[in-house]
């Protein structure tokens, strides 16, 4: 097979190999290589073939698995004899990446793998293939979505997900599929991001939700690819485990879903904003970053909005202080609100367009300083919203 093709696939799959830790199954630190001879009536890799746009040749599959995620990448190969072998994953990826530019020949027995490429030859002990678990199948496809649009939406939503395992479902991005669009939501109780994007369902009445681990989804979505479409799958596997699948260019990532009930977020989304501020996104973000330098890790920034301007301030009597004025479009009453600068910066980084719109549901300055503010980008329209709860002084 081609060196570049194999290197690409092993490098991709190796990122899913769990780190070797005490107590973990050693065999999972390996990559499973499966060589199959195609039979005309066995359409075992249908969408792979479709993605590559030609008949499936004799093929190799590179797979990785840990409790949360399974990954499977097809590789164009000439197979002389079918078989399965598990090779230490990171080592294999390192070796293949460094091979000279020449065809690669892999030959395996139960106990070792020989890799030959040009004049280079590697002999690597194999891991116990009989211990390798059965990988979950790709869940039933539900539709397709544009690769870049999907990646952009995930990047807008995932930062709002929780990181505290006390409430696992909040570490997920919630995906809701409906005929009208694919909606993604994440919240850590303090901020919430929601985005709806167009997609092409391939089932009649799409109506399902999946809670996909946010970090994993963010990692997968940002991987570079030449493919323009992502195929999505959702369903419960043979073992009764709910799974979500992404297939890009035939490369499948199959994720175990998080359990638990997601809070009813829709009632948090305000219908309208009585006060709105339009601010230059990059200028405001730069000011927040500067002023936040003097704030301790958990200390808030105070934002005072008045006609045509907002002043960001941080610091307290004893220590360093900073403030900066940013001209904005605003003509409401004077309004003073405290925000966590990191949360606000996440929102400003996520909105699209040169201008960010910050909305407050009520014109009463007292109430507005304890209700969520809504961030959108001028170019986001109604499709993206980032809600942010303020900070209050005192303890609770």
């Amino acid at each position, binding site marked *: 097979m081609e060196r570049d093709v194999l290197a690409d696939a092993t490098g991709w799959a190796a990122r899913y190999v769990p780190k070797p830790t005490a107590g973990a199954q050693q065999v999972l630190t390996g990559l499973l290589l499966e060589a199959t001879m195609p039979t005309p009536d066995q359409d075992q890799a249908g969408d792979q073939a479709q993605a590559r746009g030609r008949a499936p040749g004799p093929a190799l599959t590179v797979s990785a698995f840990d409790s949360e995620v399974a990954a499977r990448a097809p590789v164009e190969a000439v197979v002389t004899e079918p078989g399965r072998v598990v090779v230490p994953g990171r080592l294999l990826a390192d070796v293949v990446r460094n091979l000279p530019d020449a065809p690669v020949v892999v030959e395996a027995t139960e106990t070792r793998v020989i890799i030959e490429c040009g004049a280079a030859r590697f002999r690597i002990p194999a891991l116990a293939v009989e211990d390798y678990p059965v990988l979950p199948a790709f869940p039933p496809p539900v539709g397709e979505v544009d690769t870049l649009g999907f990646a952009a939406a995930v990047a807008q939503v995932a930062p709002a997900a929780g990181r505290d395992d006390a409430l696992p479902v909040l570490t997920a991005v919630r995906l809701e599929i409906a005929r009208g669009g694919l909606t993604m939501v994440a919240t850590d109780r303090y901020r*919430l991001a929601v985005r709806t994007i167009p997609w092409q369902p391939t089932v009649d009445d799409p109506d399902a939700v999946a809670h996909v681990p946010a970090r994993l989804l963010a990692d997968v979505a940002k991987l570079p690819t030449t493919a323009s479409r992502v195929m999505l799958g959702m369903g419960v596997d043979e073992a009764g485990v709910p799974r979500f699948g992404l297939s890009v260019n035939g490369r499948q990532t199959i994720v175990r879903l998080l359990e638990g009930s997601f809070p009813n977020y829709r009632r948090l989304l305000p219908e309208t904003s009585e006060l709105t501020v339009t601010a230059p996104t990059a200028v405001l973000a730069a000011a927040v970053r500067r002023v936040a330098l003097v704030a301790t890790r958990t200390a808030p920034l105070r934002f005072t909005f008045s006609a045509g301007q907002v002043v960001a301030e941080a610091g307290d009597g*004893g220590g360093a202080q900073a403030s900066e004025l940013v001209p904005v479009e605003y003509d409401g009453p004077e309004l003073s609100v405290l925000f966590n600068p990191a949360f606000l910066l996440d929102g400003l980084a996520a909105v699209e367009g040169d201008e960010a719109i910050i909305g407050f549901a009520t014109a009463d300055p007292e109430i507005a300083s304890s209700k969520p503010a809504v961030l959108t980008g001028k170019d986001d329209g109604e499709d993206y919203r980032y809600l942010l709860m303020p900070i209050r002084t005192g*303890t*609770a």
Partner: protein
Amino acid sequence: MKPPPEPAPLESGGPGPSDSRILHVDMDAFYASVAVRDAPELRGRPVIVGGGNRGVVLSATYEARAFGVRSAMPMARARGLCPTAVVVPADHGRYREVSRAIMDVFRDVTPLVAPISLDEAFLDVGGGRRLFGTPVDIARAIRGRIATEQGLTCSVGVAPSMFVAKIASARCKPDGLLVVPPDEVLAFLHPLPTAALWGVGPRTEQALTRLGIRTIGDIARTPADTLRRALGAGAGGHLHALAHGRDGRRVEPDGVDVSVGAEETFSADLADPERLARELLRLSGRVAARLRARGQAARKISIKVRHADFSTVTRARTLAEPTDVTWVIYRTAGELFDELRATSRPLVRLLGVRAARLSAAGRTSHQLAFDERPSGWAEVDRATDGARRRFGEESVRPASLLPDRPRRPAPPREWGPGRV
């Protein structure tokens, strides 16, 4: 005693030590020095302060240290190393008294004093330039006052950050002053062994040695990701930042290692979970009320449980935000207690609740969540405090603490077991 090392020359060009505003003041062999000062006939002799039930060395004069005596060493071993040593029992009341006088000296030059223990403290003296001179002037003045007023010596590290100041004071002991100007921080740190860094204990040191990392400079040259993989995300990133001289912490007055606690030994050992929960609530209420009376809030809550067989366990959790609220302290203590007793539930002889990492309550703030009402338990506490002031301690208490009301309060949460 050896002569104090020369302070770094102030004329060395560059920006000078003007930004080295953090002082770490560490008393030299504090307990032993106090003992010698109070009994001058001991001067010049090896003196060991030993004590407590466990019989270990609490402090030793430098004369005794010359024989290899070290703090925390078993007394028997120390006597073996230094048979001529005079052993003095510890007098904690006396040490506290002297400590207060020393801390008062610090507070005369800056309000930003963070005591770490009786005998060491961090000071931020950046605001005292006009009144008291440069940080180096202030360090000299403090050393002078402690020597004349208390008859004790201390070592002072002066640096731009807390951890560098701490290392500096350790490198100039005893009776020394070491100034690390900002532009010399890396040159000062990098040749030092990794163990000089705060947070590098024997285990971390071993892990680093396995990577071939022996000096702080080696840490600085190692990619942060490699350190994270070897030591975990938190510790790895932390050490990498320290090795580059970055330490974001500020001197928080009275904010370090000072705590407020309450504990109770029961007349009969307890097993009933409801009764135990109520005791936790009672203790949490006492701790919270004491915090509020001092105007402080705590970020770390710990519990102590002593079983009928006298085995004692403690568990601690750090909160996202400081609190002085009974309900938050009780909920945290309750979670810790439930986790502790998830597998086995021996009879309980003593329960304790402690709040640490204190800061001024007026300067804390609270990140609101979507699922909480903006007023609640803090206000309940304020009302309770007011009623107790007017009508007495027993006038107001949670319903579950009323006689014949064995009920455990339920958490007021809509989205599940989040933590404030």
